[in-house]
């Protein structure tokens, strides 16, 4: 459990990095690998819907096929919002 204080307009991945955490990614935050995908647990109404670019990447996400009822978003594209709660394995303090 980790609480991130995101700046306005900042993505979840960028906020995590700024606060000293590494977020899993292969493409480095370019919406290409899908490795940064997170599950939205609560607060989903406060966030903007995915762009066409993000939706395209989400469409082949293995997690979505496995859990069709869950909401997945890319941490490199999702802009944080008050009350947003997400689940992600592998987020670690840098060093």
């Amino acid at each position, binding site marked *: 459990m980790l609480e991130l204080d995101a700046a306005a307009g900042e993505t979840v991945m960028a906020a995590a990095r700024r606060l000293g955490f590494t977020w899993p990614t*292969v493409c480095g935050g370019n919406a290409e*690998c*899908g*490795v940064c995908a997170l599950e939205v647990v609560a607060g989903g109404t406060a966030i903007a819907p995915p762009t066409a670019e993000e939706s395209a990447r989400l469409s*082949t*996400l*293995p997690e979505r096929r496995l859990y069709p009822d869950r909401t997945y978003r890319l941490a490199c594209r999702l802009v944080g919002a008050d009350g947003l709660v997400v689940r992600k*394995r*592998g987020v670690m303090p840098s060093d």
Partner: protein
Amino acid sequence: MQRYAAFGNEQIPRERFTSREFLELEYERLWPRVWQVACRVEEIPGPGDFVEYAIGDRSAFVTRTASGAIRAFHNTCMHRGTALASGCGAFAGEIRCPFHGWRWDLDGNSTFVLDAHEFPAEPAEDLRLRDVRCETYGGFVFVNFDTTAPSLLDALEEIPGYFDPYRPERMCFTTHKTTILPANWKVVVDAFNEGYHIATTHPEILRWKDDAALEYTPLHTHTRYGGAGWPVPSPRLGIPADEVDEQELLAFKIEDLVDNLPGYIGPAEAEALRAVARAPLPDGMTAGDFYLKRRRDGAAARGLDWSHLDDDQVLGGDDLLVFPNFIGPVIAGAFFGYRVRPNGMDPHSCIFELWTLEERAEGEPHTMCEREVYPDWREHEWGLVVEQDFENFAGMQRGLKNTAGGGLRWNRRQESCVRRFHEVLDRYLFDAPT
């Protein structure tokens, strides 16, 4: 024309993938001297069945004789040179030239010359079709245009040591697809000769495979990589060991393989495996334990004996490159192979075939599947993984024509098989024949 081997770990010139001169050198020094896969035995089950094998301007055909032997001949009439076989089919008892009707028996002996008395007398032996070296291994029929080449088995070196346990001779075709890809043939061979591209090109595989743990074994002539078959998330995902969800792993592995790489697991097995992808794991069993048990139990139920195969061979298998142009993964029960050839005199495209084979129980008939041809690969659904690879090729070839970046840089471990392939190629192109 620079050879690559002289560069050691240095960068690799791009021209070998783009120049017409390099392609011509390959046609002159490589293809006439190397064993290459022409077809499978199940494609020519009866006397007179034939398959043509063409590489550049050279063409041979493989056929089965009346006694059941397999032979290959240069595909040219002794009269005016007409090609005697085209594609695949069956000779009606004899080989017959469509132009003036000269005929040969299936052993290549001349049997008929129309108005023979009007030709100068010539020993019958001189009218024989010209033999091409032809030998089989594991149900694959190889040809070699070099009459002085070593035997196929000698040339295969360590390959049977890796391939034999999977019993390729008991496998037969389940798909045979041909297309043209927009890249040099070596760009395509290289793309399948390493797992370094998995993380970026096939990131969904990271959910169930430790891509960085693949072992690379560049052999003397051929190459092999493999291992890392036990399902675990790639360390690139950063998932701590105690947070790995074995149930999820099982589904990721089975569904990715069955749905996104059709043919990697043979069709007889794929459906049964797919049905248990989301079955609750029995207490104490990991995804790897369960997957292994299902594969082994399923094989036994289909009459296949895998008792001699170790767990790695059932879980992950071996990716083999049979130098120069036949490459792909073999696992217990199935082979997923690519045959890649240059496309005429165009260094920027190649003829690509996907051959998938599945093991049959002893005594089960070996049949040939339908052959599919797609001049444009986008006309067909190949499965996500293969299409992800195909998507890269046009950009790779286009970028290689641009020399601004200097030479290519290869990963010393994960691209060591790519390096070996080019070193061996250079032996053919630049060393004097021994």
